[in-house]
């Protein structure tokens, strides 16, 4: 990850006399996936709309890729895509025409428009429905089209507001894969969602809002990230396995929980392989190694406490 890509300073926003965002400030690096979390009414959607230039804050500044969103909103729009929490698609147009229009309004030339529409449809799995009208698609497919519209011009920043709401489990899995793929391709992504377990799958950062008053940024991935908790399933005496884990530098805070062992561990694939080989060499009968889950949730709730 590189230098700060999104910079927000002292952001204040009011609806009437209600302060929705109060002195919010944070920096997000390029290539990060940030989980935007917080209770209902915390100001998540307002923050995303301010980042997209759809709302003008009372005070503060927003820079995306060095562009001042308040001074140059249209230039900023070329760098960002925003999938909103409703289906912003043209029902009477086909999927192809929806995507061509999405690419055209961001200033792509005619050849790039065609390529962009094909790429975006493929990215969300709508390639086989290009000539179908958007209004005839199911809810999940319309949601995918809305996402495709947001990323048709290959923005450097993608803002997603509750992208998984209303999606079935398969569509949610597809969405997680899509977000990981887009991130691998270099896109910086901010995802607002209530479903913390899904955000955990792909997020590198967590930004929490509380009543719009402040923003806390936590690093979930990379060298600065706190190591996640893993559970080792066993057959036999857990104390032998616990002894086997001692002396491994990657492992810390190991403890026996219900006959299994939980420990903090970076969990990279190669490190997992070495850990399992080490334990098997020691004669430990391992049945299972998996993250305990709920890391993001614990971090979020821990912050709240």
């Amino acid at each position, binding site marked *: 990850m590189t230098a700060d890509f999104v910079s927000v300073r002292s952001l*204040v926003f009011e609806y009437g*006399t209600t302060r929705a965002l109060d002195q919010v400030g944070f920096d997000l690096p390029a290539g990060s996936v940030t989980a935007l979390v917080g209770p209902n009414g915390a100001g998540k959607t307002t923050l995303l709309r301010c980042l997209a230039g759809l709302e003008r804050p009372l005070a503060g500044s927003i820079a995306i890729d060095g562009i001042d969103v308040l001074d140059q909103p249209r230039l900023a729009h070329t760098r960002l895509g925003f999938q909103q929490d*409703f289906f912003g*698609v*043209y029902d*009477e147009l086909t999927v192809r025409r929806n995507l061509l*229009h999405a690419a055209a309004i961001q200033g792509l030339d005619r050849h790039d428009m065609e390529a962009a529409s094909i790429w975006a449809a493929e990215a969300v799995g709508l390639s086989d429905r290009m000539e179908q009208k958007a209004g005839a698609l199911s809810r999940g497919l319309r949601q995918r089209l809305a996402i495709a519209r947001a990323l048709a011009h290959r923005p450097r920043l993608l803002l997603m507001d509750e992208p998984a709401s209303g999606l079935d489990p398969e569509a949610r899995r597809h969405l997680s894969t899509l977000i990981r793929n887009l991130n691998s391709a270099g896109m910086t992504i901010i995802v607002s969602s209530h479903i913390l377990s899904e955000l955990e799958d792909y997020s590198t950062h967590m930004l929490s809002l509380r009543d719009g008053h402040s923003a806390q940024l936590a690093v979930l991935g990379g060298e600065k990230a706190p190591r996640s908790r893993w559970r080792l399933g066993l057959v036999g005496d857990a104390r032998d396995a616990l002894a086997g884990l001692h002396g491994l530098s990657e492992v810390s805070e190991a403890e026996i929980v219900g006959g299994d062992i939980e420990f903090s561990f970076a969990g990279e694939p190669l490190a997992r392989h070495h850990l399992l080989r080490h334990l098997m060499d020691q004669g430990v009968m391992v049945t299972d190694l998996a993250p305990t889950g709920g890391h993001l949730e614990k971090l979020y709730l821990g912050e709240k406490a």
Partner: protein
Amino acid sequence: MSAPSLLRMNPELQRCLWLELTPTRLVLMPVLLGLVLAGLHLIGTPNLKEWLGYALYFLLLLWGTRLAAESFTDEVAQGTWDIQRLSATNPLGLALGKLVGGTIYVWYGAAWCLLALPFVPGDMGGEELAGILIGGLSGQAASLMVAMLLHGFDANRRRGSTALAQVVGIVAGIPSLGMAAALSSLVREWGTEIHWFGAQFDIGPFTLTQQVLTLGWWLLGVAWLVRRQLGHAPSPWPFLAFAVYQMAFSTGFLFAGDLVPPLPVVSGVAALAGAALAYVSLFTTPWHVADAKRLMLAGDWAKRWSLLPSWLPVAVLAVILGAISVLSGGREWSLAAAALALFVRDIALVAAVRLLSRRRTTLLLLVLAVLLYGLLPEVLDAIGGIGLRAWIFPTLDAPAVTLVGPLAQALASLALAGWAWNRRKGP
């Protein structure tokens, strides 16, 4: 032009073409128009050109103004307007695309009418035809602009907005009711020529030119509102430029032949035109507490200027021109000073009402206007005649001491606005 080329040039226009010009609709329009013309011919209607003119009125004004307003309100209702707001499109391009694209079906019908025109009996002058076409586009632009202005007051309101926008569009578009043509009707009684800044013009070309210029201002207004919707700061420049144009336009009629009017008259007329436009803008611009706070928190003067409500510089200009009229020795300086005081009073009253009342502020302001300018003068006349009235209203030949009345009203309203601000400003 191929679809990808047009899409590249004006995405909004191409999107509207996809939606509006379906094969069925393309066939239906000429068939219906042909049936109407054939029917009129069969019953022996002699002047079919006149009926084609009515068809153009129906298509471009009655239907076109509706379509123009709906091209915006439908997008808001369907949740797609926020997608458009995220675009990098040029505001004028988006405005033109929406205006022409949203009404393209009625223009398609109008094109059939124009094609039929040379082949049917009757009379229609080129000037009249140009007036209908320009008036139609003006009406549609006005309708779209009003729909966007109303959206600023209440983003969720739709049905009433469309109807109101359509009515304003029709009024602005009918040449016999539009501003430029109303002027033309008025001066027609004076003769066939008009004096403007000392030069003589034929009324026909003069009013047609004014209609074209008015259309240009409508288009600029729509583009200005689109620009705001795309995330830019409001900027008072376009309305200020429009106000200066209208002031110059109005004062132009004071110069007849070699007659040069005195400065107090010129500045007085310009001030009146400016004040009238400031009132219009004041009523049609939403002004929220957050807008005022944003203005005060702006970091530098350039930002503050860009965040000013459009009526404010025009009001200041009107006050300055009014003051010039008073100071340059106008005979009725006390009348002008009283009018200025009431102008300040009204601005402060509007601000106070907008701050204190969260709903139906426009209705409340209209009631207030009727009370202050309709009922109160009648009551004062009935009680104490012109002497009493002069203490409240600008009155011709009133003694200077009666200025105390309007000045006191202005100060009281300013105090009320200050109190309302302190009550509503929040954290």
